[in-house]
């Protein structure tokens, strides 16, 4: 009997070891991936990066890896996810690599087995909470959810610096605009940041605060640029930085209580038509070379700690107080907060 148990235990150990071996495969080099990708010839990439910026990235990539074309579709996250979901139902996968801003979709797809693991080297050099330890997703870049205010509506010295003041002082009633927090989206991250700073009770008074809700970050920024509302508690930082650099009448606010971080997450579908080319592009974008180029072209921060360059000469992330929320936390808590917020404001 004991002999039998020893044999069974041995078998179980072997199976466990084999499983572990599968969970942590050897990470191929870029050159190995390139050789495999050559036969595929192209990578179908979809995301919210502007066309012209993507073309700059593609030019460098194709110089580095001749023979691998990038077929890019610019689509913001919401319609992109709708398309991917519709395609899934038709048993079709068009995209090899996706760049999304909504953690909720990434977490869901990971659970559903829709994504392929792309083992990544140098994870010790990545910002915390920006990559999945199993390799199913990784932030290609990040941006703080910055506060902004209208320089047309507020004079220097007037803008708030504290989230607590913004959501409790009657002075700011009817002055705030935000992108409506969605279930598990970046705006939920910004809402979590406010809850983190002032407590959950403030949501109950959200309706009285007469907060203007918009569909998406860009509309919230536009509302501040036009002077319709004076302040926003959190918009996609890179767009605010760009708008300010282009001369829009806004200024950035780094809240005393800290900022949430939005991630631009890269994922490869498990049934991607060109899986090696997708892995190659994703891996290359995560190299210091790819990250520096990304920062310079799309004005987002690098997800790597060892890349010093910052967007449009902004201070490094290390100089800002960042409240890092994991994707899972944004999905679970952010979802609940978004629902509560919707109910409170009467949506």
């Amino acid at each position, binding site marked *: 009997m004991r002999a039998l148990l020893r044999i069974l235990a041995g078998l179980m150990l072997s199976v466990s070891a084999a499983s572990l071996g599968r969970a942590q495969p050897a990470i191929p080099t870029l050159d190995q991936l390139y050789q495999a990708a050559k036969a595929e010839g192209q990578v179908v990439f979809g995301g919210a990066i502007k066309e012209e910026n993507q073309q700059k990235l593609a030019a460098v990539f194709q110089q580095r890896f001749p023979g691998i074309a990038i077929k890019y579709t610019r689509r913001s996250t919401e319609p992109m996810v709708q398309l991917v979901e*519709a395609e899934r139902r*038709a048993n079709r996968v068009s995209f090899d690599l996706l760049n999304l801003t909504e953690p909720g979709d990434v977490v869901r797809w990971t659970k559903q087995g829709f994504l392929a693991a792309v083992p990544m080297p140098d994870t010790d050099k990545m910002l915390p909470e920006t990559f999945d330890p199993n390799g199913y997703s990784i932030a290609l870049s990040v941006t703080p959810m910055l506060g902004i205010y209208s320089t047309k509506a507020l004079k220097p010295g007037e803008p708030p610096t504290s989230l607590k003041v913004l959501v409790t002082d009657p002075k700011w009633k009817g002055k705030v605009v935000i992108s409506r927090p*969605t279930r598990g989206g970046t705006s939920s991250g910004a809402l979590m940041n406010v809850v983190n700073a002032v407590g959950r009770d403030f949501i109950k008074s959200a309706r009285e605060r007469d907060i203007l809700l918009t569909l998406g970050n860009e509309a919230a*920024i536009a509302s501040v640029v036009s*002077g319709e509302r004076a302040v926003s508690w959190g918009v996609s930082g890179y767009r605010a930085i760009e*708008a300010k650099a282009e001369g*829009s009448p806004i200024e950035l606010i780094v809240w005393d209580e800290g900022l949430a971080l939005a991630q631009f997450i890269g994922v490869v579908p498990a049934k991607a038509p060109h899986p090696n080319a997708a892995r190659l592009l994703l891996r290359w974008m995560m190299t210091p070379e790819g990250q520096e180029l990304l920062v310079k072209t799309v004005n987002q921060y690098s997800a790597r700690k060892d890349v010093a360059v910052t967007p449009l000469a902004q201070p490094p992330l290390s100089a800002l107080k960042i409240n890092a929320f994991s994707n899972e936390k944004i999905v679970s808590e952010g979802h609940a907060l978004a629902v509560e917020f919707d109910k409170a404001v009467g*949506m």
Partner: protein
Amino acid sequence: MTALSQPSATVPIRIRFARGVDALRQEWLRSLIMIAAVLVVGGLVLYPLGILFNIGLRTEDGALTLANYRSVLTEPGLVSALINSLIVSAATTVLSLVIALPMAWAVARTAMPGRQLLRVAVLIAFVIPNFISVIAWILLLGPNAGLINVFLRDTFGIAGAFNIYSMSGLILVLTFSFYPLIFFAVTAALDNMDPAYEEAAQMAGASAWRASLGVTMPLVLPAVLSASVFVFLEAMGAFGAPAAIGHGARFHTLTTKIYELFSYPPRFELAAAAAAPIIGFTVFGLLLQRVVLRGRRFTIIGGKRGAARAVDLGRGRWLLSGWCMLVVFVSVVLPLVILVRTSLMARWGLAFSWQNLTLRNYASFASGSTIVPTAFLNSALISAVVASACVVLGMIVVWIVERTSLPGRGLLTFASTVTFAFPGVALAVGFVLGFSAEPFDLFGTIWLFFIAFTAHRFPFAFMFLRNSVKQLSSEMEEAGRVCGASWARALVDISAPLIKSGLLAAWMVVFAVTLRELSMAILLYVPGTETLPIAIYSFIDNGTFEIAAALSVVLILLSIAAMLALRWLTGKAHMEL
């Protein structure tokens, strides 16, 4: 109406079917064309809708269930969204009637100055994309920074006079977008109408006013009613404006709620089920039309059509003229000025000054790195093909519905109108699912745009053409047939010229609504098949409102150019849209 055209509800279905079969036997070519048209319309519309309906009947695991349809009643916010949609749509319809009816009558029946200009102005109001005009209105009527509110505050001390972020704000935006539908339908009906009826009334002693109100208006009732159903359903299906304003005003409409069900996380099953009430409203609209118009005679186009005598309004012409100018100023000039103003600014949030003026936004279209040139060509091609397909197909289908006793005309009418108010995003999902695998693997091609847009916009052509055919006496066509003309020849050479105005109106309206179509395109496009609304949306999404505004101006100019080209091609003496 002739006996042939009378859909005899009292005749037993067995006999009606036998008549239909006889009709099929008698003229095989006509039958072939009709069967092909029925199959095309049925396939175009019922196939994707069937896919969606099937999704609504499934659990996420694919098992059959009615739970999604039950959930429509219990899902938080869905019922209130439906009520909001009904309120907004009803109010938009009533206001559109109030605005458009006097304008249409003024253009078609009076000597009011500037009538041709008015037709063009109303067309511009119609072609301004909804998702663009709403931005213009937010910039005009935003409670704090809207230009009109700022003017009233700075000049008269009136703060926050208008608030675009409200249900009334949404009704206003939708009304100014959709009243042209009533205007087009009614002017086309009046243009088509034989003025002899009014002249007879006047000879019998009725004043011009009385002849218009007592004779003309009742005769164009089908056009008024179907256009009202148009507007109601179009308002029900609107998405861009409700999304922008509804969020600010904190309410959902049915379409924004359905869109939300397709997002974060997508709940396709419930979204598909939630779209079902819209089909119900479409059917209700059709039934309403049928009940109201039952037994009434509207054949007012004969072969002796002449120009209507202009009604002398006396001093009333200034009142009517003032009304028309006010409507044009508010619905066309104001949003257009905002668009042009924004398109000429280097940075839109800054002051409108010489330093901030530029033509760079227009020049940027020529850049090789933008999708604008491709989008421009695609939009022109898709809109022209879809408008032409809808009109040709519409003519055949309307003939079947109005001029034959073939069985299944009710179902054909349903198929021809059901997509009218259907949310574009939901319909697009049906097309992605239905055309992503063999034998219909068209996803990623421009062919899918042709098919999907034709399906979505066919109801416009159907309803416009149906109005025209309802007015047309069949005597001329029958005379042609007696003289030996084939069905097709009688249709093309006799009937079509008599309803030329309706045909052109249908083509132009379909062209215009296709040109501005965004909600479907956003799901269907791939690199190389982008359209102008996609390009505009992308610029808005990037925060470059100035370029989006410039491109919107180009889109409007393209619409006007298409209208002028059509006028030139058809050799018309005046525009009849």
